């Protein structure tokens, strides 16, 4: 036979065998393909959503920064002294500089329509300088109002990006109100910026008008720079850094990109890993399905070997089945993922409800390379699930297998224990490794190894868990038969348990992690939300007089004012938050949920307390000193660490008096209020509004502490919505796998049932035996899955979360989830076994004993 002939026989024989098998058992193939499809769909969708959101984020960054080679940005919204502009404009290597006032703003006066505002960036520019450095931020002739093209930089004229024009609802020449920094001003729309139809909302006005109208005279937030021809950017950057005060930092495209990336990296990786875990579950289900299929077809394979099919031909057949199942599942998954991504972007936005990206809904960016990668991953998962069954098929000795009655022989369970324990130990070791570039890669590897170890140890574990029941020598033929069967065939039990253990353990791990985090967040909210009511203004704030008047308002027992101020500690990280509130150096626990030890504040030092994420992100420990990017670059002493789940980019708490002394800034924009007994929050809100000027009063937002707590928990739940959805899918896929596995195993025992019927076992006794077997199998899977899940949850809680999100939590066990999981799983296993048993018993018992397969 020539090699070409060999290939032909392979193709025809494989096609016949595969098509025959699939025609006979389409349900099992569909479940296996669906398992792969779900994993691929989730992974691809999360990737597309992240990619689209990142593309939108970087487009927004590029739009606001325009074409500047370099920019110097303020570390806080307070900005830096405008005198820096003159210094930088004369610096070596700089060809042109353009000073910028940059303020978060919105259209209209009064209360914003939503908590997040409208996402408008207000830029104050010098038209001549901006024309040189960032020409796309200057309205071109084509975009100017025909009535007065020369007046585009008059003090009352604003140029809008196309997205801002749409959002404002105004037309060229009409007037719009813009609110920023707690102040409102009216402008006439005089031009449209040449920025294309992107979603970024930008409004450009004259720089002096911006400083005057919005109360930031003498301050700048940014200076855009153009390098001189031939000037090397790194050298110029290094030179500039020497000239900058603490409140300003050099920003390049790469630092911007890193900052954007850091903002969401952990969240993205977490979701991506969850999706890959779903794919891994799919691989286990494919393994389960293929193993059973191979076990059932052992005599068929033996016949083929006897008839002259080479060992590698059998391997090829089982692997080809895996490829077709994986390929079909992966293709289906890509389609589902595309649809899921489009729907999610439309419904939840680019941040999947996490609140990272605000503003417009990003367009779906389809990446063919990513599609190829996820297709390959789906294929690899199916192949991975098929390799062991294929090797087993190839290893079978045809002479013996032809005499086989259908039950595969049992291996040595000690070997499974060794493999399992080895993998579990490797998983435990991996959990000790540090994060890699801020990503808990080894944490996820640890979870994968624990999962693999648990599954590998299943034959041994199944026998160990069943041993007490076996030793108890149960009364009654039904229970005895059921337990003998499970005890005698631990490998088969393990194959059935593989999918159950994988999905139960993942479910349990996620359940414990989410319950622990939610419980810790709930406790934390109790600590961090004092008083009966909170209020805030979006921008600007309350001066000391207004604060005093509010404190004296009727119905109020006490008011604690505070201020939150974004502060750029490093150009590579998103800004941390400076939280200014009353914190007593001697008793910080009264104001903050302090964790760990606190340090004695040295005489003369200014104490700060850093949040847990800030401590981990910047590697700052208690007792260290830190220079803050505030005016005169004050050095502060880190006196303690506090728990904070709200600001993932980190926060630093400083006592109100210290902040005022360092900055002279006495404006406060947030407060918590304790009401006198019997006073209604609404009445207190009216009293507070009456205590401040009408323009400010219109901007004050109130919320009751209890409502805030409920809102925060609702936001928490919605941000974990995708996690819950992934969990639900894992449960569904796991149960489908359980059903397919139980059904396949039961149907493969038709002969055994026929024999039992022959020797006088009643039909209902066989059904009861199957129910007992199913329930016992479910119980073993549940115990093993929960145990493994608890171990994996500890990796999630103590490794993945601290490394990815920089927070810790106390373990809480979701007993309700565990109980319903136990009932659902054991019930589903027993029911599936009974239903499949009924089907298997419907065949004539005599024929069942005599038939070949």
């Amino acid at each position, binding site marked *: *036979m020539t090699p070409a*002939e060999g290939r032909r*026989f392979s193709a*025809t024989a494989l096609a016949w065998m595969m098509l025959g098998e699939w025609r006979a058992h389409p349900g099992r193939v569909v479940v296996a393909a669906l398992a792969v499809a779900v994993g691929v769909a989730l992974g691809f969708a999360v990737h597309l959503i992240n990619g689209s959101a990142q593309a939108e984020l970087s487009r927004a960054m590029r739009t606001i920064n325009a074409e500047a080679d370099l920019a110097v940005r303020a570390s806080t919204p307070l900005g830096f002294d405008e005198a820096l502009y003159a210094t930088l404009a004369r610096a070596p290597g700089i060809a042109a500089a353009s000073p910028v006032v940059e303020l978060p703003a919105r259209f209209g006066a009064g209360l914003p329509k939503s908590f997040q505002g409208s996402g408008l960036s207000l830029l104050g520019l010098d038209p001549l300088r901006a024309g040189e450095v960032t020409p796309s931020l200057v309205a071109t002739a084509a975009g100017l109002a025909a009535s007065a093209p020369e007046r585009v930089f008059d003090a009352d004229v604003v140029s809008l990006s196309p997205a801002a024009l749409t959002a404002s609802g105004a037309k060229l020449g009409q007037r719009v109100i813009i609110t920023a920094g707690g102040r409102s001003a009216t402008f006439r729309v005089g031009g449209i910026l040449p920025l294309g139809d992107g979603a970024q909302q930008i409004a450009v006005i004259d720089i002096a008008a911006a400083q005057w109208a919005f109360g930031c005279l003498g301050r700048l937030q940014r200076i855009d720079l153009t390098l001189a021809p031939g000037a090397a950017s790194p050298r110029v950057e290094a030179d500039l850094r020497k000239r900058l005060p603490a409140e300003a930092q050099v920003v390049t495209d790469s630092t911007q990109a890193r900052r954007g990336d850091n903002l969401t990296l952990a969240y993205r990786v977490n979701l991506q890993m969850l999706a890959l875990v779903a794919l891994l579950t799919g691989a286990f289900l494919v393994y389960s399905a293929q193993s059973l299929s191979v076990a059932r077809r052992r005599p*068929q394979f033996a016949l083929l*070997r*006897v*008839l002259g099919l080479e060992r590698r031909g059998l391997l090829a057949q089982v692997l080809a089945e895996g490829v077709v199942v994986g390929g079909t599942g992966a293709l289906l998954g890509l389609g589902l993922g595309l649809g899921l991504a489009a729907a999610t972007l439309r419904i939840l936005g680019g941040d999947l409800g996490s609140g990272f990206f605000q503003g417009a809904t990003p367009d779906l960016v389809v990446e063919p390379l990513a599609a190829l990668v996820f297709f390959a991953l789906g294929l690899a998962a199916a192949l991975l699930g098929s390799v062991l069954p294929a090797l087993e098929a190839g290893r079978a000795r045809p002479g013996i297998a*032809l005499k086989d009655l259908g039950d595969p022989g049992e291996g040595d369970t000690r070997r499974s224990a060794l493999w399992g324990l080895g993998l579990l130990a490797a998983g435990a070791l991996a959990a000790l490794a540090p994060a890699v570039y801020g990503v808990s890669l080894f944490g996820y590897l640890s979870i994968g190894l624990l999962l693999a170890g648990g599954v590998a140890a299943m034959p041994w574990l199944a026998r160990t868990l069943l041993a007490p029941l076996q030793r108890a020598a149960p009364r009654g033929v039904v229970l005895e038969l059921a337990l003998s069967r499970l005890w005698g065939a631990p490998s088969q039990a393990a194959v059935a348990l593989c999918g159950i253990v994988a999905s139960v353990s993942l479910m349990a791990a996620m359940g414990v992690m989410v319950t622990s985090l939610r419980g810790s967040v709930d406790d934390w909210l109790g600590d961090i939300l004092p008083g009966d009511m909170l209020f805030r203004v979006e921008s600007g704030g309350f001066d000391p007089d207004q604060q005093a008047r509010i404190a004296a308002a009727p119905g109020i027992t006490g008011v604690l004012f505070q201020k939150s101020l974004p502060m750029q500690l490093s150009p590579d990280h998103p800004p941390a938050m400076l939280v200014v509130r009353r914190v007593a150096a001697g008793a910080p626990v009264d104001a903050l949920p302090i964790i760990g030890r606190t340090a004695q504040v040295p005489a003369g030092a200014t104490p700060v307390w850093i949040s847990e994420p800030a401590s981990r992100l910047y590697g700052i420990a208690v007792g260290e000193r830190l220079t803050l990017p505030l005016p005169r670059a004050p050095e502060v002493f880190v006196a303690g660490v506090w728990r904070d789940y709200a600001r993932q980019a980190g926060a630093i708490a400083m006592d109100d008096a210290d902040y005022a002394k360092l900055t002279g800034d006495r404006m406060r924009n947030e407060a918590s209020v304790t009401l006198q007994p019997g006073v209604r929050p609404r009445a207190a809100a009216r009293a507070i509004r009456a205590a401040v000027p009408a323009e400010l009063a219109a901007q004050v937002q109130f919320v009751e502490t209890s409502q805030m707590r409920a809102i925060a928990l609702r936001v928490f739940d919605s941000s974990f919505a995708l996690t819950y959805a992934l969990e639900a899918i894992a449960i569904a896929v796991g149960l489908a796998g359980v059903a397919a596995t139980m059904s396949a195993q039961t149907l493969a025992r038709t002969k055994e049932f026929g024999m039992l019927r022959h020797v006088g076992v009643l039909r209902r006794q066989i059904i009861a035996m199957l129910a007992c077997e199913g329930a016992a199998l479910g119980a073993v899977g549940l115990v093993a899955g929960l145990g493994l899940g608890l171990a994996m949850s500890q990796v999630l809680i103590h490794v993945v979360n601290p490394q990815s999100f920089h927070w810790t939590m106390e373990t809480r066990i979701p007993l309700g989830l565990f109980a319903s999981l136990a009932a659902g799983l054991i019930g589903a296993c027993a029911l599936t076994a009974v239903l499949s048993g009924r089907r298997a018993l419907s065949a004539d018992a005599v024929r069942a004993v005599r038939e070949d397969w």
Partner: protein
Amino acid sequence: MRGPPTSPMLALTGLRKTVPGGRVLFEALDLEVAPDEIVAVMGESGVGKSTLLNLVAGLDEADSGRIAIAGQPLEALDDDGRTRLRRDKIGFVFQAFHILPHLSLAQNVALPLVLQGAGGAVGVERATAMLDAVGLAGRAAARPSQLSGGELQRVALARALVHRPALVLADEPTGNLDPETADRILHLFAQQVRGSGAAAILVTHSERAAAVADRRLRLTSAGLVPHDAR
């Protein structure tokens, strides 16, 4: 009965086989089977009849001795080589039929041809002709589940001969059939084997089945002896 062939289809020389535990199944086993000759091998259960067939088919390995099929020594071949030899030179009939339930009758019969490299269509065409020859004309597209035991064994017989093997190995081919059906199958078996020019070894407990053979041998631990020599 025919005289010993000058060029045997199957030659076994000095075969010895032990089972795990050290028990000797047989030793110094010699046998030659000529083309067109059917040899019946009888013996008690557990004496090693099926093992002998497995050794001849290259599915098991002897402790010592030589096996040659159509002049090709088995010991010179690796697993793939033995598999190819089975594919090209041997046909099998089993007690339990072993017909694949999800393939049509024609596909089942065509399997050896397809494994040899014949296209699916060519294989099915020749398989259909073979089904006609064993009395299953017009049933090529039927499924195994629609057939009786006797009919299934006819399909197995057709599959064993469709690729014109040099040697047919039959292991209790009528063990699952009633006496009348068994007689018909045995008659068909003998007719088809002799018509194809192959040699055959028929392992059986049944005197009635062994009656169709040209020679009847009994397997003992000392090797093969004429069935009547007690």
